[in-house]
Each structure stands twice: as C-alpha cells, then as structure tokens.
C-alpha cells in the first residue's frame, strides 16, 4: 500500500494551494484564455465594432495571404531569426566578460558598476528606439546636405567604415566586418540585465573552490573554464533563455511590424503574423535548452 503523507505535511500542502490558487486563476483568465482567443483571431476575419470585436471564421486564409501572396513575411521572419542567431552568442559572451571584470576588486568599481547597469534603467525603452531613428534621420539630412556637422550618431559611436576602408580589404569582407562591429557595439546596450544576472550568479560560487584551484596551481585560464563556467552553468542557461525572449519581443523586425498592424486595428493579420514566429522561437528555445542540458550541464554537475 502506498504511504500517504499525514499530519503536518497535509496541512502544509493545503496552505500551499491557498498561496497559489489566485495565481492559477490569473493564469487561466489572463494568459490561457487570451492565448486561445489569439489563435481564433488568427484564423478569422476580425472587425472592431462599438459592441466589441466581431470575428468570422475563415480558416487559414490569413496565413495563406502571409506566406503565399508576398515575400515580405518570410523575409521578415528570416531577418528576425538571423539577427537572433548573430546577436545571441555575442550578448552571452560579452555580458559574461563584463560581469567577470565588474566582479573583480579594483579602484572605482562602484562607479564602473553604476555605469554598466545604466542600460537596465534606460536601455530597452522608447528612448533607444527614438535615438536610433534619429541617427537614421540624420543620415538623410546629411545626404541632402542639410546638417553636415551632425555626423555623430548613436548607431556609429565609432565610424568603423572609415577605419576598415583604410585597411584595403576586399569590399565584401570589409562590409561584413563593419556590420558585425557596429552591431556588436549596439548589442552592448542590450546586455544590461544579462550582466546583472551574471554578477549575481558569480556571488554564489563558493570561494573555497578557487582556493582549492590555487593550491593545485591551476592558471587563471583553467580556473575560468573549470571552475567559473561550470558553476555558472544554470545562470548561462537563464541568460540564454532571457536573451532569446527579449530579442524575440523587442528587437525583432517582425514583432514591430505586427505591433504597428495592431495599432492600426488589424488584429487578425497581426495574430496570424505572430503565431508561426512564436512557435518557431519556442522550438528554437526548446532545442537550445535540451542540447545545452544534455551536452554541458550534465557533464558539469
């Protein structure tokens, strides 16, 4: 016979339900029902009336329109995914490096940290979108000769194209490097939370492990790969996870297109646009998480 928990266990469990039941109610009302509704919108023709949203079921017509009638959608999707894959490794590596530096003890550390957590406060907001759009406006102004002085812009903190041009590289490679470098510099702005997560994670590594390493006489390089990285394993996973979600929501061309459609009250197309993208992203996250767990985490723990 199976042993049933008794006494305090049962009471505790009951209290646990009391803690979480409101949350479950919230999830059902504000997440699961809207998700189902969103699928329905994607499959129907919506019309905003004073009484509310009218939906007529039309099957997969919205999806057919998106995929078959023009190449816009597939292009946007490809663009979003390629930016996801180029940004993700850079963000993870950069934020880890910066966190390691900020975690060392040196004069002016508080000041450096204060600057590096600045993106947490003002990054990922309307301000950044505004600034990058300004630099585009400036580009237009410059070409029309309106404001020659304002060559400085947010997007090109350092003018890489000039530097690369001096190196006399083949044109394609030069362009590739320029793009990659300026992209990297923009990505520093999206590292805020990630640096923070890494710094917090670094605090949990017990000092004894490093001491053991020092007694054994390992180099800094080995210390990094055999102590720090394995101990940060789960934090790295969290950072990857968070970065994908953030890139998916905020920095993707497709989502901003869908948002503008939403603001124009075209709900069905916007839902239809988001769903395939959403599902693909989830599949990618699942694959990354599973591969990472199987290949690395299991070995480290």
């Amino acid at each position, binding site marked *: 016979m199976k042993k049933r928990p008794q006494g305090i266990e049962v009471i505790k469990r009951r209290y646990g339900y009391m803690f979480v039941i409101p*949350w479950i109610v919230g999830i059902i009302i504000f997440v699961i*029902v809207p998700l189902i509704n969103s699928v329905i919108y994607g499959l129907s023709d919506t019309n905003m009336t004073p009484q509310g949203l009218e939906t007529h079921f039309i099957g997969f017509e919205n999806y057919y329109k998106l995929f078959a009638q023009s190449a816009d959608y597939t292009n946007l999707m490809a663009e979003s995914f390629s930016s996801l894959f180029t940004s993700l490794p850079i963000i993870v590596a950069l934020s880890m490096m910066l966190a390691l530096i900020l975690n060392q003890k040196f004069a002016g550390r508080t000041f450096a940290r*204060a600057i590096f957590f600045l993106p947490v406060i003002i990054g990922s907001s309307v*301000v950044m979108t505004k600034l990058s759009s300004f630099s585009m*406006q400036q580009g237009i102004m410059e070409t029309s000769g309106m404001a020659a002085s304002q060559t*400085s812009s947010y997007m090109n903190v350092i003018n890489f194209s000039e530097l690369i041009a001096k190196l006399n590289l083949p044109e394609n490679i030069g362009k590739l490097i320029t793009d990659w470098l300026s992209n990297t510099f923009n990505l520093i702005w999206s590292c805020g939370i990630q640096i923070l997560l890494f710094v917090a994670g670094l605090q949990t590594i017990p000092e004894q492990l490093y001491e053991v390493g020092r007694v054994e006489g390992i180099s800094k390089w080995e210390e990094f790969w055999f102590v720090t990285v394995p101990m940060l394993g789960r934090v790295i996973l969290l950072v990857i996870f968070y970065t994908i979600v953030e890139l*998916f*929501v905020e920095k993707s061309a497709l989502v901003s297109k869908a948002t503008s459609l939403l603001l124009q009250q075209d709900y069905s197309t916007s839902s239809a646009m988001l769903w395939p993208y959403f599902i693909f992203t989830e599949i990618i996250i699942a694959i990354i998480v599973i591969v990472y767990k199987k290949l690395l985490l299991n070995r480290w723990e």
Partner: protein
Amino acid sequence: MVRINQNTLHRTTKHTTRALAAIFRIIFLIAFSYILLYPVIFMIANAIKTRPDVMNPAVKWISHSPSFYSFKLAFRGMQYPKALRNTLIFSILSGLIQVFTCAFYSYGISRFKMKINGLLTFFLILIILVPDIVLIMPRITNFRHMDFFGILGLISKLTGRELRPNLTDTLWCFYLPSIFGVGLKSGILMYIYIQFFKGLPVELEEAAWLDGAGPFKTFFSIIIPSSGVVILTVTIFSVVWHWNDWLLPTMYTTNNFTLSSQLYNAETVISIWARNHNITINTTLSYGVELCACILFIIPPLAMYLLMQRKFIQSIDRVGIVG
C-alpha cells in the same frame, strides 16, 4: 640555486601579467563606458543646440548658443505633469502591486510540496515565454466584458441584466493582471523570488510554525522582513519595466496617456499641441524637442537609480541567482 631562479622568474611573470590585466581592464572599461554614456551625452548635447549651431560645422558637441526653449516646448507639449501623474497611478502603482503579489505566489510555489508543482513550473515558463504582444488584444476584448469563468455572464443571461463590467480605460486593466501575478514580465520577477526563497533556511519557518504561527503569518512576519535585498532588486526591475513600457498604456487607455506613450508618439503629440497654440516648429527644432522629451522621460528613473544605486548594487551582490 636553479629553484630560486625559477621562483623569481615566476614572480616577475606574475607581476607583469597582473599589471597587464589591470591595463587591459582600464582600457576595456573606458571604452565600454564611452559606448554606454555616448547616447546620454549625445542627447544632452543635441537637445540644447539651436539652428545656428546645427548649420555651423565647427559645432559638434558644445553648443555656441545654447537654448532651453526646446525643453519648455517638450515639457508643455507632452503635458508632462498630467502624463507623469498618470504614469505614477497606472504603471508604477501596478508595478508595486506586482512586487508584493509575486512574492506571495512565489513563496507558495517554492516552499510547499504539492502535487501540481510540475504544472506550476510549466505555467511559470509559459508566462516568461509568452510575449505581451500576443496577449494584448484578447485581453482588451476580455476587459470589455470582464468575466470570471463565465459565471457573471451566466447570471446576466439568467437575469437579463448586464453584470459584466466594462473595464477598458480604467485602472483595473493595469491592476488586475498585477494582482493575479500575471502582469508585465511577472514571470522573471517570480523566477528571481523563487530562487531566493529556495536559498532561505527552512529552520526559521519551522520555528515559527512550532510557535503556532500560520503560514500567512510566517510569510508576513518572517519571510518578508528577511528578504529585503531581493525585494529591492525586484522593485527596481518592476518599476523600471513599467516606466519604460509604452505598449500597454497605448492599447489599454484612450484618454489617459502616460509618459511613455506620449514619448512614443512625441512627434504627433507635440506638433498637435504646437498647432493648437500657434507655435511653429521647424525640422531642426522638432528634432531638439524630441530629444528634450527623451531627456525629460529618463530623468525620474535616472534620479531614482542614482539615489538607490549603492543599495541596489549591494543587493545584487547578495541575491545570488542560481539559475
């Protein structure tokens, strides 16, 4: 003899590597600080420029004839006081509600062994993953006829009276999700809380339990006071994310604009205001005005951050996120 030589050699190389590391660190930090401070300096430098400055190729950073006229325009064009008040009432308050409710639910998830723990983890991952943009429209239609599991709707059908309240354009659009712990980015906040609660020693709670305190009393008088660090971190995240979010205010409200939604539509908002007040704004000026709007937008969170910066960074050191 040979041994001693090796030791000194070893020591000198160690010294050089350390010095090199310090130099590398300084260069690295300065370069990155430059990149991070650049937009802020850029905003301030360009916001006070006037038309002669823009046309003058010698002026890059420091304006020759600075003017604060665009600040005035931005302040009045955005209707700053009203927008700030709305932001505080709608966004910030719902952010603060979320700080508390998420702590409550996270405690329930992390401390009690229940049969549905697997399901709860699934829900948590779900709310971290699902972006607001997917949910926002269905939520609005839901708010139009607010209902809980169709109970109110059923009663209305039976009695013939409309009982389902219309919540659009009210505070409840913001507060209700926060109260139920499914507000803006609540998944991440709950995740941080859960990690922290799992690290707290159980003994304290057991002692309280033996002394006859119920779980709610334990939560309020033991857990909340001993998790000040994590509460500070979560508060900053929640408040900042709410402050920066423009999508929810734009979608949920029509007349009650917030700062973020005003900034998002700054160009239209300010030009409409200027037309109503017979003020002409040319291209250069409108550019400066928008930058001023950006500065006005980031001043409050920046001030808050500078005030709490030391505490915040200390708390980050102590929260210890284990993934």
